[in-house]
């Protein structure tokens, strides 16, 4: 079991709810993934509109926890206000904190992120910060009151997979007791398995499932890959070797000459 701010979670896959071909496919993909946590957002509602109500009813019918995000926020003030509005609507202290610093890469503004995390943690929020793989930023986020870290492994939606394995390994090594969730950049199940094999606690992804040819099939594939990666980490893996090592015993081998 994985404990996130005291909440015990069985599934190590957190799933985003955007970009699916239809609400029905979103619902089926969530079920197929066996996720217990989905990310959601807040957007302007038109006068007399019921868009939000329909979406919220669907999510509530799935029986999962929600992790609201502050996606699209580029300043501390925007992110903090959005987080407070999310707490109103979703009745949770959880917040996936995003403070975006760059339009092209959607790279977090880590300075604003730390500042916003400090404000929100002091206000009772349980912050899930979307951050880079920078070790010192991670330390600052923990000092600011975060008990979980969510480093990217590649830019959001890029599907590139782990770009800096050594940095991820370093985070895992430095923070053995902090839940670490890779958020963003995962493109395929093997990427998810790879970061789970490094000892990461969970994976958060969206586009790789939502934009797959068959999102429901892909949700199943990710669930299996994440389980496999976790089991492999726990079982202890062989380290790579420079030379071949025979697997079949040589003792007792017949000699023909």
């Amino acid at each position: 079991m994985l404990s996130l701010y005291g909440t015990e979670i069985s599934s190590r896959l957190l799933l985003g709810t955007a970009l699916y071909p239809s609400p029905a496919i979103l619902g089926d993909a969530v079920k197929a993934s066996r996720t217990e946590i989905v990310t959601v957002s807040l957007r302007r509602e038109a006068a007399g509109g019921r868009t939000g109500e329909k979406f919220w009813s669907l999510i509530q019918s799935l029986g999962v926890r929600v992790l609201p995000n502050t996606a699209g926020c580029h300043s501390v003030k925007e992110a903090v206000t959005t987080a407070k509005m999310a707490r109103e609507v979703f009745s949770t202290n959880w917040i996936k904190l995003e403070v975006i610093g760059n339009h092209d890469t959607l790279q977090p503004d880590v300075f604003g992120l730390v500042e916003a995390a400090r404000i929100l943690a002091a206000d009772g929020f349980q912050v899930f910060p979307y951050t880079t793989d920078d070790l010192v930023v991670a330390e600052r986020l923990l000092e600011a009151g975060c008990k979980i870290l969510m480093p990217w492994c590649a830019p959001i939606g890029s599907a590139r997979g782990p770009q800096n394995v050594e940095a991820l390994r370093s985070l895992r090594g430095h923070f053995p007791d902090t839940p670490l969730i890779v958020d963003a950049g995962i493109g395929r199940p093997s990427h998810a398995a790879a970061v789970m094999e490094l000892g990461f606690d969970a994976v958060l992804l969206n586009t790789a499932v939502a934009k797959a040819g068959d999102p429901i099939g892909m949700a199943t594939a990710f669930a299996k890959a994440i389980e496999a990666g976790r089991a492999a980490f726990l079982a202890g893996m062989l380290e790579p070797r420079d030379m071949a090592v025979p697997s079949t015993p040589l003792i007792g081998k017949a000699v023909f000459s």
Partner: protein
Amino acid sequence: MKLVINGEVQEVAADTLAALMAELDYAGNWLATARNGEVVPVAERQLCRLADGDHIEILSPMKGG
């Protein structure tokens, strides 16, 4: 008075946030509101008096990653 509601200038009669939401047919407990960048909780909408030029945000749940 004129307000900026979700980024658009509108002429309204309401003088509280609760009245404004009724006037514009916003209903439901899934909406979050802010006035001039400050969150206004549901319980405070009745008391939240509006002034000409206020910026109002009315948000609802949306898909997200």
